[in-house]
């Protein structure tokens, strides 16, 4: 006779809530999946993990060329390289995590079909993986900011920079929550994958990555304010580079939006996850 803890019942009901104890029992799998993704994405590549740093640098150079060079957008008196880099670093976190989470079922259906483990492990491993990548890219941001501090007299304030953390948390939460919702609906309706791509392309422009909210004309402001990520991008940049101030109400809107999407995402994912295996 084993202890009560290992007694189990299987029936037709699905769990809405997270079973923390079960998730904890699979923590080794969680970290192994992170390692697997990280190792496998750099097999047989020329530069390997250096791509984590090259990708944002190349994107920033493109932005500098187009938005500053061709279009002539201003960057609030901050050098354009660190200005674009902060926005792109946070954007990478959101878009990668959102897309990775949204493809949970399509990328792992072979495994889901053959072995049981709490399905939430997969999106959680994506969160850890993308936060690791983000941390590495944040290291690049620090190096660049320090460099501009000494060469271009960019003001640096360590304690003010800590304010960027809430922005990272909210962006991660929204990416995970909405990714979970999309993971379920795109598995059920394959045609929504097109919508997914559209959302990502649209968001690049609706998020203040290469512009600031203060530059948006009044009649369009509602559109950018509707985006719960806008305030987070502003907060992230201003805390690191000391650019224009933060709208607290907008941050709170993003935070509440995160709580709702996260709760809805987990509920839908847990509830529908079992049923999707039948049709995926």
């Amino acid at each position: 006779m084993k202890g009560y803890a290992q007694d189990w019942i299987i029936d037709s009901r699905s769990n809405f809530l997270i079973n923390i104890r079960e998730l904890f029992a699979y923590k080794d799998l969680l970290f192994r999946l992170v390692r697997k993704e990280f190792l496998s994405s750099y097999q047989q590549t020329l530069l390997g993990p250096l791509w984590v740093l090259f990708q944002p640098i190349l994107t920033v150079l493109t932005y500098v060329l187009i938005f500053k060079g061709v279009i002539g957008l201003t960057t609030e008196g901050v050098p354009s390289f660190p200005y674009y880099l902060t926005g792109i670093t946070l954007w990478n976190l959101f878009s990668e995590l959102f897309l990775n989470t949204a493809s949970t079922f399509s990328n792992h259906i072979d495994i889901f079909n053959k072995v049981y483990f709490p399905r939430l492990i997969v999106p959680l491993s994506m969160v850890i993986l993308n936060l690791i990548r983000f941390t590495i890219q944040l290291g690049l941001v620090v190096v660049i900011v320090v460099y501009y501090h000494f060469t271009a007299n960019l003001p640096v304030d360590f304690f003010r920079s800590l304010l960027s953390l809430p922005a990272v948390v909210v962006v991660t939460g929204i990416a995970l929550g909405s990714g979970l919702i999309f993971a379920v609906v795109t598995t059920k309706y394959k045609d929504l994958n097109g919508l997914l791509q559209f959302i990502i392309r649209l968001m690049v422009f609706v998020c203040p990555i290469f512009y600031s909210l203060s530059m948006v004309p009044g009649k369009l402001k509602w559109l950018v304010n509707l985006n719960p990520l806008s305030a987070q991008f502003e907060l992230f940049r201003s805390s690191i580079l000391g650019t224009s101030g933060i709208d607290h109400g907008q941050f709170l809107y993003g935070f509440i939006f995160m709580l709702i999407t996260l709760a809805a995402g987990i509920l839908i994912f847990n509830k529908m996850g079992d049923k999707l295996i039948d049709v995926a």
Partner: protein
Amino acid sequence: MIKVENISKRFQLGTIGSGSLRRDLHGWWERSVLKKKSDFDDAKNGSQFNGKREFWALKDINFEVNEGEALGIIGRNGAGKTTMLKILSRIIKPTKGRIIGRGKVSSLLEIGTGFHPELTGRENIFISGHLLGMTRSEILKKLDEIISFSGIESFLDTPVKRYSSGMYVRLAFSVAAHLEPDILLIDEVLAVGDAEFQKKCLVKMNDTTSNTGRTIIFVSHNLQAVTNLCPRCLWFDEGVIRLEGDSRSVVAKYLSRLQEKVWKQDYNTWEIAPGNEYIRMVSVELIPHLDDPEAPIDIRTPLTIRFRFRNCQPKVNLSVDLLLFTISGECIFDIQSKAVVLNNEIVEGECTIPGNFLNDGSYYFSLYFVKDTSSELYAYNECLMFEVADFRENNNWYDKWWGFVRPNFPLTMKRNSDILLNLKQTELF
């Protein structure tokens, strides 16, 4: 301990899986808002789609497995065996019913689940082990054992995409063989891999059931393996349990169901009877000598072939050849009768093949009618087909037995001390 109560599983083929949001929204709009039946619904309600397009893979399944018991599940493809195992492994949810159990469950529905081709063998041992529910410390403790069981030490740091399929299976199975759950669910995973390694794995599994009190549920088409590993067995058929009982008798009944039961051909009218101007067939019949009419023909069963024909010409010096072929066309034997002088009359012939002569497999007979033991009058090819099932006792070889025939001649061994060991061939292994 596992108790399965009234488990049913319905798959919805049309409604959930229609896969297009536009179609579902359209259907909803037409049904709920406009309150009319859409064309799509009409099509679905037609005979081809049959209402909601439901499919019950399992219907009200009940059984129990005791702690330390090995239970076999057999049945044809699509009988619901894998669905049952997937519900037990929590991969899919049952539609109705419940299962209560005690103990940690691991399931092996596929070999090498989660293997990443770009990563090394060592890395994949951990991925696969964690997916099967092992913790890091459990894997580390058994790592050396897993590696030596697989026998691919020197390729451990090579990406598995460069492995041969045999090496891949060995590595994957070695991880699985070192699981230590209380309950192990195994689907048809032994169908892959070479015979020698399959045997090693089956022996390893057999060890675990008899030594550590592990509960095993084993789904397989390898009936020999089921009878050897599992004392008790369930026969699934079209989503219900057809029969439950001790493996040997369940397997025998299952085999007998699979075998063609009609071994007699009667040709009532002259027109349809095979033959020519010399010979017309009247009937051919295969009579297995079985104690139990429910039992299948197996390698121990004596078989009698009885045939009738009409000789249509006067004063023919006729002999008959009975030929036995394997399904792939090799001739096993050609038995010739003595020649008899016959007039226009009906003649009956009979031949009995003793038990313990044919190996398991599919065979067919042909009859050749010969005049003056030299010229062929008529060849009745492939007149009867039948199958011989396998039967083994006290034997750990799970693979196909070699040879066209399987006679039971005594095979003896002598020691140096001149003690005669009177072993039959079947007891050698």
